[in-house]
């Protein structure tokens, strides 16, 4: 079994304060991993580290040679300017960046792919709607269509279901299941533990440090969850320098 990702004594943080502290472990290729933990546990920070938006304070992330274009990342609060005059079709088409690039044309096959992606997420008929007119759920569907086109081997989703209704969650998690079936590696930050238990075989319970990591039913025990809750989540302004092996 090859590892898609390996964390080696990884510490990520802001201004010397660790948000993810001495994390070790491997994510197998084709894994469907849920990252859970209280607010401030470092879940989003971990994803930012994996995409390379944040450099490690110490340690490293071994991406097994994965290039930028094989990683797709959907941040928690996508900073999308929804007042910008662009329609759903063009937003979804951005997912073709790696094949089309700066100047490449978008051929007939690719146009079909775009239409198919829009249809897969259930946004038929919305192609020419400007993104400012979409509801929260429709916007998230459009972003999933863009992910579809990105065709990435490693997919990182940061709370993709926040503030969505059951219907949308069901549709979008079916997409995640489909990606899993295609042997893509998926790491998803989630808060809904029932959803994690029913759909994610593997979990990482994070509270700055890894509380537990393994099979979901062994990780999400009452004991572990209570432990995660206790671990403090505030930055200590006068925290001493960490002496653990650097």
């Amino acid at each position: 079994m090859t590892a898609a990702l390996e964390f080696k004594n990884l510490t990520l943080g802001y201004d010397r304060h660790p948000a993810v502290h001495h994390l070790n472990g491997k994510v197998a290729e084709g894994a469907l991993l849920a990252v859970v933990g209280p607010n401030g546990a470092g879940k989003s920070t971990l994803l930012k580290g994996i995409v390379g938006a944040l450099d490690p304070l110490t340690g490293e992330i071994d991406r097994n040679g994965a290039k930028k274009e094989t990683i797709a990342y959907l941040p928690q609060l996508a900073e999308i300017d929804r007042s910008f005059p662009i329609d759903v079709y063009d937003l979804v088409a951005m997912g073709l960046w790696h094949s089309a690039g700066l100047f490449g044309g978008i051929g007939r096959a690719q146009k079909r792919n775009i239409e198919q992606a829009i249809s897969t997420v259930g946004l038929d008929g919305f192609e020419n709607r400007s993104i400012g007119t979409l509801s929260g759920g429709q916007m998230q569907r459009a972003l999933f269509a863009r992910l579809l086109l990105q065709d990435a081997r490693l997919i990182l989703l940061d709370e993709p279901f926040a503030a969505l209704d059951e219907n949308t969650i069901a549709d979008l998690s079916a997409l995640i299941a489909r990606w899993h079936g295609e042997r893509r590696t998926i790491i998803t930050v989630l808060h809904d533990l029932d959803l994690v238990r029913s759909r994610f075989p593997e979990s990482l319970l994070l509270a700055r440090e890894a509380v537990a990591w393994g099979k979901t039913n062994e990780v999400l025990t009452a004991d572990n969850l209570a432990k995660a809750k206790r671990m403090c989540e505030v930055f200590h302004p006068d925290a001493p320098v960490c002496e653990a092996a650097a």
Partner: protein
Amino acid sequence: MYDYLISPFIEFEFMRRALVGAFALALGGAPVGVFLMLRRMSLTGDAMAHAILPGAAVGFLFAGLNLFAMTAGGIVAGVTVAVGAGLIARSTGMKEDASLAAFYLVSLALGVLIVSLRGSNIDLLHVLFGTVLALDDATLLLLAAIATISLLALALIWRPLVLECVDPNFLRSVSRSGAPTHLVFLALMVLNLVGGFHALGTLLAVGIMMLPAAAARFWVKELTAMIVLAIVLAILSGYLGLLLSYHSGAAAGPAIILVAGILYAGSVLFGPVGGLKRHFIPVRHLEA
């Protein structure tokens, strides 16, 4: 009618030159203005116009009313401020507007200082308000070159520029072209402002960029249409402004901007996309 609308341009060469200059400015400046507006950088243009002023003034000091010296001075000052502010904003936590304010204020102070050290009482009215009615061949060529460069460069950076506006994080995750695109865009803004100050002066150059762009937003929802309309409105402002100036004897630069302002006001009132008209004449809502 003919006498009023067309003959001024047939009869006088300086009017024809002014018209060509105004058209060139419209072609280059209006699209840049649309992107500035959509990126909420409308006032950046204004700040940059101030930043260019000292550069042009220094060029003027050393070489007099020399097109090359003043253009070079303006571009150097503008690019320094725009790129410096952009780099600081990207590599620190500073927001771009604050970083820009810091840079352009320093640039302005430096420019005024240099002028005062020379101790001569220089007539900078030309730089402040432009000389649209006295454009020579070299200046016209400069304006045309700037318009050409702007349109070509915008075509080249179109995709990353749009992406950078809509979803900068996504662009960052798929490509490294975000920063260079931003810098090219800032350079285009500086170029157009420098071109603008020869015709309209530093203080009004921003007007022909921003007013047509802001007006166009009230009429269309789609980006390409918005840019085309902004160019048309800018051209219209140039033409009507020159006519107004010719017939009333008013200064040409301000007349052009004033016409653009009137077009903007009309758009705010009657534009179908979010114009005020909707507030006063309610339409009945649809079924679904």
